[in-house]
């Protein structure tokens, strides 16, 4: 898993690529927690380079979203592909998160 960030005017864009599984998901959750501790409140998570996600990855995302909700923060997603899109659909994450096709649309929707 690789995490790259880019600061936009109204959000921190976090691009996650590779695999978010039981081994790597805690790393994602910790990164988001660190950014929250640094004062970030609005996140756009770009998953266009993510090839694989398991329930451990979903757990990391949900835990991060709960932490943000407590602080009136926000987490939205962009660029879901194939397997990742399917797992989001099965687990109902499509219903609880805002998901956009591109970063540009996501940033406009915040």
């Amino acid at each position, binding site marked *: 898993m690789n995490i790259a960030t880019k600061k936009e005017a109204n959000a921190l864009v976090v691009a996650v690529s590779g695999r978010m*599984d*039981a081994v790597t998901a805690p790393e994602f959750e910790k990164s988001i927690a660190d950014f929250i501790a640094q004062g970030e409140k609005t996140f756009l998570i770009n998953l266009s380079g993510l090839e694989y996600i*398991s*329930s*451990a990855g979903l757990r990391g995302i949900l835990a991060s979203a709960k932490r943000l909700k407590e602080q009136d923060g926000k987490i939205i997603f962009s660029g879901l592909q194939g397997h990742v899109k399917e797992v989001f659909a099965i687990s109902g994450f499509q219903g609880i998160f805002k998901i956009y096709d591109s970063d540009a649309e996501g940033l406009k929707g915040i």
Partner: protein
Amino acid sequence: MPPPRSIKIPAVLESLQAITEFVTAAASTAGFSARRTGDMELVLEEAVTNVFKYANPGNPGEIEVSCCSGGGKFSIEIRDSGKEFDITGLPDPDLSQDIAERPIGGLGAYLIKKLADEVSYRRLSGFNVLTLGFKQEPEK
């Protein structure tokens, strides 16, 4: 039908990659699509990490994963000597709950049930035996 192949390895998270690589290589050789092999990989991760976490807390034993194929079907059997645990008996999560209400966890067993074509559990001579069946193409 070729004989089943198996891997026996410590039931710890560090074994996850070796287990998934073993099974996906076998499924790929048996002619299963990348998409179906991806489903297997996910189901397998959910099933074995569950064993790593709950079967023998503090004292991990071994886990044995066998697989075989034939007749357009691929079967994976996961065997561990941990405490009795039937993943098939867990209730489905409530997918309508929002971020604040949703409990953390509970999605692993649900993903197994949704992505595998067959899921069955037996307690056999002190072992948990979980069998997962996949057809060439998903029915759903």
